[in-house]
C-alpha cells in the first residue's frame, strides 16, 4: 500500500481511534516516518479526535490532586539533595588509575622495544613482537576509554542529582518552617530538626540538622500527628552528608515528631521519640 492509498483507506482514522490492527499500526507508523504527507494527515486526524474528546472534559473532584501527588510520590524514590557519599574523591581516583595505566603502558612498551632490539635479526619474531605491541596498545587504549567513560557517567549522575535538587527547591512553594525541639532526656538542648511544609502542594521535607547519628539497622522516621494519631511521613537519612530530603504529602497535621525505628520504617511508632513540634 502506498502513501496515497493509506491516506484514503480509513486506516489512519482507525489508528487515531485506537482500533487499528497491529499490522495497520505498524504500517501507519512506518509510512508516517517516511512520507511527510502521511504524517500531516495523521496529525490532522489526531487533532480531530483531541477536539472531540476535549468537549467531554469533566473537572475531577477537588481532593484529586493531593491524592495523585501522594500516589506519584510513592513511585519516586527519596534522594538526598546531596549524595550521601560526596562525589569529590571519585575523580582524583580515576586520575590515579589513568596515571597507573599509562605507566604500565610505558613499561610494557619499553620492554617490547628492548625485545625488538634484541631480536632485530629475526623477522618472524619481529612480526610477533610487533603484533604483541599492537595488541597491548589496543588493550591500554580500551582501559583508558573505559576510565574516561566511567568518569563521564559519574559526572552525568552528579549533574542529574544537582538538577533534581534544584527542582525540589523550586517545588518548595511558600514552605512553612517548623523547628522540632528535643523531647528525649539525654539529648542536648540544642538538638533540632526542621520540617519544611509546602502550603500549596503539602509536600513535607525534612532537614535532619544535628540529630545524633543512628546505630546500624536503625533509621529516623517522621510522623505527622493528625487528629491525635501518628501518620507516617516517611523515613529519612541522618548523619554526615544527609541534608534536605523530600518525604510525603501530608495534607494536614497538628504536630510533627521524629522517632528512631528499625531501618525502612514501621507502620505505627515503636521507638523512642527524639524531637517534636506542635503547629
Amino acid at each position, binding site marked *: 500500500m502506498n502513501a496515497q492509498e493509506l491516506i484514503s483507506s480509513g486506516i489512519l482514522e482507525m489508528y*487515531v481511534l485506537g482500533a487499528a490492527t497491529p499490522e495497520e499500526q505498524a504500517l501507519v507508523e512506518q509510512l508516517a516516518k517516511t512520507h511527510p504527507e502521511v504524517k500531516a494527515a495523521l496529525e490532522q486526524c489526531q487533532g480531530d479526535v483531541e477536539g472531540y*474528546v476535549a468537549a467531554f472534559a469533566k473537572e475531577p473532584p477537588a481532593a484529586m490532586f493531593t491524592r495523585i501527588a501522594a500516589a506519584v510520590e510513592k513511585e519516586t524514590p527519596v534522594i538526598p539533595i546531596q549524595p550521601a557519599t560526596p562525589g569529590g574523591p571519585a575523580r582524583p581516583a580515576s586520575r590515579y588509575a589513568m596515571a597507573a595505566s599509562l605507566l604500565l603502558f610505558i613499561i610494557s612498551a619499553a620492554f617490547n622495544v628492548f625485545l625488538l632490539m634484541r631480536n632485530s635479526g629475526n623477522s618472524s619474531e619481529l612480526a610477533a613482537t610487533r603484533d604483541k605491541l599492537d595488541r597491548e596498545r589496543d588493550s591500554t587504549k580500551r582501559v583508558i576509554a573505559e576510565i574516561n567513560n566511567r568518569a563521564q557517567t559519574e559526572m552525568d549522575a552528579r549533574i542529574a542529582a544537582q538538577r533534581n535538587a534544584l527542582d525540589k527547591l523550586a517545588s518548595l512553594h511558600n514552605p512553612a518552617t517548623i523547628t522540632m525541639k528535643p523531647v528525649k532526656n539525654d539529648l542536648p538542648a540544642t538538638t533540632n530538626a526542621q520540617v519544611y511544609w509546602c502550603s500549596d502542594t503539602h509536600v513535607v521535607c525534612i532537614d535532619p540538622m544535628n540529630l545524633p547519628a543512628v546505630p546500624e539497622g536503625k533509621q529516623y522516621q517522621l510522623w505527622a500527628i493528625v487528629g491525635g494519631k501518628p501518620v507516617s511521613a516517611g523515613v529519612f537519612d541522618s548523619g554526615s552528608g544527609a541534608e534536605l530530603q523530600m518525604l510525603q504529602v501530608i495534607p494536614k497535621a497538628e504536630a510533627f515528631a521524629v522517632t528512631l525505628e528499625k531501618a525502612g520504617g514501621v507502620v505505627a511508632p515503636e521507638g523512642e521519640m527524639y524531637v517534636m513540634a506542635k503547629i
Partner: protein
Amino acid sequence: MKTKIEEQELIALLRARSQRGLRILYDNYSAALFGVISRIITDNETAEDVLQEAFVKIWNNIDNYDTSKGRLFTWLLNVARNQAIDKTRSKDFKDAGKVQRIEDSVYSIDRQNNSTIAVDQIGIKKFTEQLKPEHRTLIELLYFGGYTQTEAAKELGIPLGTVKTRVKIAIQQLRELAGVKLEP
C-alpha cells in the same frame, strides 16, 4: 488554573520528575483525561481510581513517550483511555457488575452530561446534536468501547469494509463540526 507552557518544556519537567511539572500536567489535562475515563466508566469512585492510575502511568512512562508519534495530548488521552478500557476488562470490575454495555453508554450520554459539571456544554452539544447517529455510535464503540473493527462490524451488522469507510467519513465530520460555531 491552566498554565501556559510550551509542550517541550512540560515534557522536560516531567522527565526531570519535577513536582511543578506534575502540577501543570494536572491543571492543564486532568479535566480532559477525567472526561475520557468517565465516558468509559460511569461509576465515579472507580473513574477517580483510574484517573490516579493513569497519572502514575504517565509519570512512570514519560520517558517512553515518542514525540514523533504525535502530540503530548494524544499520548495522554491514549494512556487514560487504555487504562480505563483495561479496567472494564478486569475480573474485579466484571465481578462487581460495573460493566456498562457500550450501547447503554452511547445512548445515555446526554442524560449523563446533564447531571455532571460539563466544562464545555457548547462543545458537547455541537457533537451530540450535529454528528450523525451512525457516525457517533461508531466512534463511541471504537474509541470509548474499545471495540475492534471486527467487533464493531458485528455489533452494527455491517460489513468490515463499510466500517472503514464510515470511520473515515465520521472523522471528516468531526473536522467540519470543529469549525462550526454554535450559539450557547
